[in-house]
């Protein structure tokens, strides 16, 4: 019965990995790599930008950044956030 | 001047200072123990180098003599190939120091004797099986 064990081991550790690896090649050809991802990564970007705005506010409260720079940077970040939100809404449709 | 140039000059300045600093220390180390020339025993004996030198070799079997009056004081013969050198060392000896041990000594040569102030033995051999040393392999035979 040893050869049953040997063959099953070969199957699990050799044949299965190979099947796992070549399986995607049999899917229908999809050239469109970028598309489906946008929503989740946009949401992530939005959270990141909000966090950056909060950090900027904290730096201003501490005094690490002067008023003018603070307002310029905050405006830039807010513009970025609204761009991202627009893209998110567009995507949802 | 524009700020980019300012920073480039600063960086260049720092680098120049650093190069000079390192070069200066390399040529004038404050401590005499900072540098040692690592040479062969043969070269030391031929050139009778007075500078601080570092030598490597084996402890000649049977050459270790420990002073009767001061246990820390010892002398031995360092053997590198055919060259032999009398060595005196007066600090505590590392555990692996014995006949045939591979050692690295640092110190000064004067009138036929080498006065070592540093003595290092090679790391415990059974950590990395020494391919040159068959006895490091403790293979035991099985009676058949």
């Amino acid at each position, binding site marked *: 019965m040893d050869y049953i064990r040997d063959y099953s*081991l070969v199957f699990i550790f*050799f044949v299965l*990995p190979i099947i796992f*690896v070549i*399986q*995607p090649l049999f*899917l229908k050809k*999809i*050239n469109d*790599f*970028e598309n489906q*991802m*946008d929503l*989740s*990564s946009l949401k992530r970007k939005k959270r*990141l930008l909000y966090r*950056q705005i*909060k*950090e900027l506010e*904290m730096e201003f*409260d*501490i*005094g690490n*950044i002067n008023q003018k*720079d603070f307002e310029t940077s905050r405006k830039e970040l807010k513009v970025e956030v609204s761009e991202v939100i627009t893209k998110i809404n567009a995507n949802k449709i | 001047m524009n*700020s*980019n140039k300012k*920073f480039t000059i600063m*960086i260049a300045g*720092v*680098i120049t200072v*650093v190069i000079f600093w*390192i070069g200066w*220390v*390399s040529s004038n180390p404050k401590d005499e*123990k*900072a*540098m*040692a*020339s*690592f040479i062969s025993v043969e070269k030391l004996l031929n050139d009778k180098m007075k500078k601080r030198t*570092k030598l490597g070799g084996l402890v000649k079997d049977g050459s270790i003599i420990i002073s009767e009056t001061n*246990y820390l004081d010892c002398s031995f013969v360092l053997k590198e190939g055919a060259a032999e050198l009398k060595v005196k060392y007066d*600090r*505590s000896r590392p555990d*692996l120091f014995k006949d045939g041990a591979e050692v690295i000594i*640092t110190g000064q040569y004067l009138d036929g004797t080498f006065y070592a102030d540093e003595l290092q033995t090679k*790391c*415990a051999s*059974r*950590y*990395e*099986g020494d*391919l040159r040393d068959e006895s*490091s*392999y*403790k*293979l*035991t*035979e099985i009676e058949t």
Partner: protein
Amino acid sequence: MTPIAGAVALNLAFGFSILSIICLFIFTLNEDKRLFLTGQRLSLGISFFVFLATFILWYQLIISNFDIDYVARYTSIETPFIYKISALWAGQSGSLLFWLFILSIFATITVLQNQSKHHGLMPWVIISLSIIQLFFLILTNFVTNPFMPTDADFVVANGNGLNPLLQNVTMAIHPPTLYLGYVGFSVPFAFAISALMNRDTSTLWIQSIRRWTLVAWLFLSSGIILGGWWAYQELGWGGYWAWDPVENASFMPWLTATAFLHSIIIQEKKDMLRIWNMALIILTFTLCIFGTFLTRSGVMSSVHSFTASSLGPIFLIFVFLILIISFSLMYLRRSELRSEKRMESFTSRESGFLFNNLVFVVMCFAVFWGTLFPVISETVRGTKITVGPPFFNQINVPIGLILLALTGVGPLLAWRNTSKQSLIKNFTFPILSGLMAAIIFMFIGFKGSVVISFSLSVFVLATISTEFKRGISARTKKFNESIFKALFAMVSKNRSRYGGYIVHVGIVFMFVGFTGHAFDKEKEFSLTKGQSDHVAGYEFTLLKLSETERPNHYAWISDIRVTDNKGEYVTNLYPEKRIYFHKNPDVNRRQPHSELDIYSTLNKDIYSIFSAVDNENGVAFIKIMVNPLVRWVWIGGYILVIGTMIALWPRKD
């Protein structure tokens, strides 16, 4: 049968790595997503087979299958279980497999972590990781294979076993901790290469690798400190850092990695220092490979050195290839790397970080110079000139002190430009504290560099507390919280920043510990029962000398009473002189060892070594070292780890 399976698994991993690289490379050309998926799965397959091979080798070590050369060399039937496990990284071929194993874990995590994050960087990230895996697979398959059978024409009954001197827990975890650090930098490096290949050198790659970098840095720092701890506790020369080539090999990547860790903050916030960041991570990763190579190939003679082997040239070639390819890529993408933003003032946080980068790189170069000095001098002058600790200390102490000062100055600088009022407001208290400390220390009679070191430490601690105070008062003003609530909320909402400040506190403590060296004292003397001797204001009396036989060694135990200069009792020390394999008929295989005893307080360590025993006359030869402030190094180390963990603490999102 299973050892062969292990070798076959390595073969398959090798094949998969080549296929993965090819597959993903073609994908980058024709954008057929199926090729990406297959390539990604091939990468997971590499890791799968590496895991298999590693577990098989571990199994062989555990069951003591001495038909495998590696098992016979590094274990024996008597070897305790935990050291059969750690034997995986005891020898050259096993440790390379272990490197590969860790790399495969990290590669798998990277692939799985980024499956839902589509940012276009992944193909080249996986290609880069697969190439590194390929390198180690070439080594373990064709150059130094851990599954080699034992070369003997008789059945091997028992293996060599691990030297009992190396059987302690620190020795078991120091190498893997370091490796986790070395290998950890592969991931940020892979992302950097990918950013270059994709012409996307914005903050995307930085954001993807910030946590990775911190984790790798934590392991590297811990590994280095553990190595120092072990050397201090076990090796008996009274120190924890010898500027040994292998120690330096771990320190250099630490320096560039620390610079990188700080510098990426600037790129994230201001999109500057892009070129620096690329260069720093390339250097860090290269130095990690170089460090692995220095430790494992016996090229530099050092206390760590192992037998020379063919590994050296191969590693060197890999290092050169990494450098040439990476820097060429940087050159090709130089227009993307140039930032439009400009540094404006010397007293800005940006320039502080720039200067920080510079100093770290300078120190790295200084260490590199000293480490390779023997090789350089031999090439240039014909004589090999070795350099010892005094050389390294003379060069590095000033640079280190500048770094310490920067640690204090940096956080108090504002973005873009610090106004004169801010400068005065922020720096007055710290500078005054530092100056006052300097005056006090000079009054006590300390000399130059000691005064500077201690005063700077006070300065930095003052700046860190200023930072905490500024943050807390900003919150209490805005949100009307109590101080404790403000502190907690502040740290919680800014874990990187305040965790980082805590790490700085740890570093300051370590500097205090380092400075203690200036006051080290030592003396060697012999004692018979009842005799005393003095050193550094302490009196050491030998109360008793006894002998005992233990399972694997014979021991002479000295009982030394320590009193201070007022006659007050301090402690008893029990250093031992041991002989391992004492029953071995071959006298040369008996191994003497001095088991230290250390009395440690915040103030100083009293370090006792039983160097030799004269049995007939009952004489013990003792070496005593009084090392002030050593404990501060270890305390600083703990604080460093805690600070890093705070910085790493995951957020809900």
